[in-house]
């Protein structure tokens, strides 16, 4: 979002809080006031009832990062509302809230200031209302924990008693609203427990799968096993004979580009989940698999590797890396591959739709209510305003639920059936018909001088791009993906050349927690360790040497396009000092140089993503059979200003374990059909495989807030393979890491 957008936004949000303050008391006047302020918007972040109830709206999706807690912390702090009494309202999809797409680790980094302003504005209006009531100067009126007090006289009024009067006041200009100083923060920066803990531990929390309503029909869908496949013939007689099956509906075949549209196939609509599942099992469908039936993972990986061995398009250049390497006495080269992955959120996709009278209402575990609204409207031929999208809790998401295809399915089926329909995805549906993390191959060559310094780095990355999901002709990764841990290579090596190759997509390529950072960090940080080995240096010291002196990297000067996660470089430079700092801190935390027991070893990796700096040390043990285990994990994170340290810790714990899953899982295809289907063949980390503890060290900082949900994931896999190398002498360059490693 540009600065201009942000300013407009703030205006909308401020008039919104004025409206909200009065909404239930004086709607007519509130509308006038809002109009007068130049923007008419629905109530946004703050609502205060005359009985004193304070409600705060969370406009981002809750998927385990505890955003419903952190947003309330921020607003309640500046509002001086008592946190424990605040009611949290989950916002529907509406552009009035600004961006609601809960991905890119930006809920806090993009909202901290504007949400503070929303809370502070409401607080100032409450103080103003009290001052006018008492005929005193606002500067003598203090608002603390739901009460405004006139300090000289000791008179006081509750927020509820002031809400109506406050709502009649003009909304103060943003620059006249004073924000608290950091030392006045009551909730921001504190480890506050999650607002949904009671609901979750008692089984009352409502996820997308749990939506209930009168006359609700359940649908499961037999989707084409190969992307863009079509139904050649269908015999649904056995399915229709199953008690409880109401209807069998053939969905329109999907034409490229896939975008967020429904995949097509055959839906079974029933009175219960069990009947729908049995009905689907009874369908006899012959498929025409189409062109993507040519997709076979082993051959495809071979073709990616061949591309990675050929010169490709240069995206960043400093000096003459190929020339230096060609004439170097010491060369190191390596190739790294990583398979497709599935986000596999614990709750598979699920959406309920009720379409009638030219209107649609959706209830879904969506990361993106606004694009759900737009896509559903498009599919039904309605205006977006005719579509309401309600956001349930999300049972995990990791990028999968920022694609609204499942809501589109529910909407199409509800319209067809004339009844509310809930579409449920089984685990097999989720694993076989996903938006996959991209498969990749990379080649890196480097030159070392006689002292073991790296003098040249030449790196090529090849993978089918996310953009192929939106434009089937797209063969080259975009600046977005190049900016995820590739062109932003932080190493001080004097000669550097980075290139991207071309690849064709055969499945829907999507984004998964930290996206291309996963494989780019894997290759870059593994290779850094290989260079340390070649230079006979300590891997942590060598990593620090590669990172070099503290500086801000100017990528534009080296021809690289770099979106910097859509935030300005002035506020969020690529700061190698901060990267080196987390490396040093994690090494100290893990007692890097200390002795380890026989069979145990440490591996280190560090990576900047989503504007946050993370260094990870993984401690492994390997038994005499080569069976390995992660014993301990140490993380140091610098995410700038943070709102809730316990949530940052939790994301470092969970993000590391998600990184472990990324290192052991794989999705492959045979003749275009995904080979895996459930947790028996799509491996994810379990409790016995996971570290007993993830030790988290948070750098205290007043730098602008940066991302937290994704950055802990990328450094995990390289730290793991580096540790395994130290323990066994075997280098894993091709993911997944096998359960047993040959010791050399």
């Amino acid at each position: 979002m540009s600065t201009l957008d942000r300013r407009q936004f703030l205006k909308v949000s401020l008039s919104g809080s004025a409206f909200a303050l009065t909404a239930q008391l004086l709607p007519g006047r509130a509308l006038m006031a809002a109009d007068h302020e130049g923007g008419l918007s629905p109530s946004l972040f703050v609502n205060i009832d005359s009985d004193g109830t304070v409600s705060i709206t969370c406009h981002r999706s809750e998927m385990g990062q505890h955003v419903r807690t952190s947003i309330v912390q921020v607003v309640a702090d500046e509002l001086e509302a008592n946190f424990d009494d605040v009611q949290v309202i989950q916002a529907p999809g509406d552009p009035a809230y600004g961006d609601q797409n809960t991905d890119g680790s930006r809920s806090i980094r993009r909202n901290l200031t504007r949400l503070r302003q929303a809370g502070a504005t409401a607080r100032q209006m409450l103080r103003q209302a009290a001052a006018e009531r008492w005929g005193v100067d606002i500067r003598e009126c203090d608002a603390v924990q739901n009460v405004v007090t006139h300090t000289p006289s000791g008179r006081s009024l509750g927020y509820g008693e002031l809400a109506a009067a406050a709502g009649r006041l003009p909304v103060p200009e943003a620059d006249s609203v004073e924000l608290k100083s950091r030392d006045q923060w009551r909730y921001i920066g504190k480890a506050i427990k999650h607002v949904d803990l009671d609901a979750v531990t008692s089984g009352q929390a409502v996820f997308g799968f749990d939506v209930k309503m009168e006359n609700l029909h359940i649908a499961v869908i037999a989707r084409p096993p190969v992307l863009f496949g079509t139904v050649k013939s269908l015999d649904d007689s056995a399915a229709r004979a199953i008690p409880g099956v109401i209807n069998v509906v053939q969905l329109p075949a999907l034409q490229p580009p896939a975008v967020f549209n429904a995949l097509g196939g055959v839906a079974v609509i029933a009175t219960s989940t069990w009947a729908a599942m049995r009905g689907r099992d009874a369908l006899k469908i012959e498929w025409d698999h189409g062109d993507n039936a040519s997709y076979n993972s082993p051959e495809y990986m071979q073709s990616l590797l061949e591309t990675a061995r050929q010169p490709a398009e240069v995206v960043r250049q400093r000096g003459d890396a190929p020339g230096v390497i060609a004439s170097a006495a010491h060369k190191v080269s390596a190739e790294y591959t990583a398979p497709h992955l599935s986000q596999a959120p614990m709750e598979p996709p699920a959406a309920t739709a009720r379409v009638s009278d030219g209107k649609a209402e959706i209830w879904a575990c969506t990361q993106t209510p606004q694009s759900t609204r737009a896509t559903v409207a498009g599919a039904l031929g309605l205006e977006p305003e005719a579509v309401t999208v309600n956001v349930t809790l999300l049972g995990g998401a990791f990028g999968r639920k920022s694609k609204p295809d499942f809501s589109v399915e529910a909407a199409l089926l509800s319209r067809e059936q004339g009844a509310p329909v809930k579409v449920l995805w089984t685990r097999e549906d989720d694993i076989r018909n996903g938006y996959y993390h991209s498969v990749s191959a990379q080649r890196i060559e480097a030159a070392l001088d006689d002292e073991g310094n790296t003098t040249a780095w030449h790196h090529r990355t090849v993978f089918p791009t996310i953009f192929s999901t939106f434009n089937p002709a797209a063969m080259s990764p975009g600046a977005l993906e190049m900016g995820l841990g590739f062109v932003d290579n932080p190493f001080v090596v004097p000669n550097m050349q980075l290139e991207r190759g071309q690849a064709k997509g055969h499945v829907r390529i999507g984004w998964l927690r930290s996206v291309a950072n996963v494989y780019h960090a894997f290759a870059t940080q593994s290779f850094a360790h290989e260079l340390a080995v070649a230079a006979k240096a300590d891997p942590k010291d060598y990593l620090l040497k590669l990172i070099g002196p503290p500086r801000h990297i100017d990528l534009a000067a080296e021809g690289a396009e770099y979106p910097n996660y859509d935030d300005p470089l002035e506020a969020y430079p690529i700061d190698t000092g901060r990267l080196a700092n987390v490396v040093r801190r994690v090494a100290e935390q893990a007692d890097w140089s200390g002795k380890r027991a026989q069979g145990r070893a440490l591996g280190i990796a560090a990576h900047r993503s989503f504007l946050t700096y993370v260094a990870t040390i993984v401690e492994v043990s390997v038994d005499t059979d080569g069976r390995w285990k992660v014993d301990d994990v140490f993380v140091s994170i610098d995410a700038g200003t943070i709102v809730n340290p316990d949530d940052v810790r939790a994301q470092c714990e969970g993000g590391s374990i998600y990184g472990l899953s990324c290192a052991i899982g794989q999705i492959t295809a045979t003749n275009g059909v995904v080979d895996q289907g459930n947790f028996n063949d799509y491996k994810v980390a379990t409790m016995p495989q996971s570290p007993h503890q993830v030790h988290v060290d948070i750098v205290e900082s007043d730098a602008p807030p940066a991302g937290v949900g994704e950055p802990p994931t990328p450094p995990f896999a390289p730290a793991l393979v580096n540790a395994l190398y130290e323990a066994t002498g075997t280098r894993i360059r091709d993911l997944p890491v096998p359960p047993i490693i040959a010791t050399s």
Partner: protein
Amino acid sequence: MKVTINGAEREFSGDQSMPILWFLRDELQMTGTKFGCGKALCGACTVHLDGQPTRACVTPMAAANGRSITTIEGLDGSVGEALKGAWKALNVPQCGYCQSGQLMQAASLLNDNPSPEDADIDQAMAGNICRCGTYPRIRAAIKMAAEGKS
């Protein structure tokens, strides 16, 4: 057939091959028990059948005839309360979706073994997947609940 759910007797006259999960979720509207895999591979649907941890997604109603089921909605008693208390004290859940199953599985563990070692916890909890990666906190919360009890 009759089945007791969280202490209340219920009638069931439908398809005996239907997994208990859908009786709970679709017919009784008790959605605390979750679907994660449908194949006894993730533990999200764990309930107690006559006190034993059971995957509701693969256990047919026929197996519940005349027996007693406890779900997350009915998890109480000293073990249940100690676990829920520890879960909250350590802020265990992230998204929360797996946690009904984790709590039910952990309750079985503590019922059988009031002071489990790490290896016992690994063994008991190995089949309960958490994609958010709350395993370290689950482990710590089980120990905290066990200590609070003993």
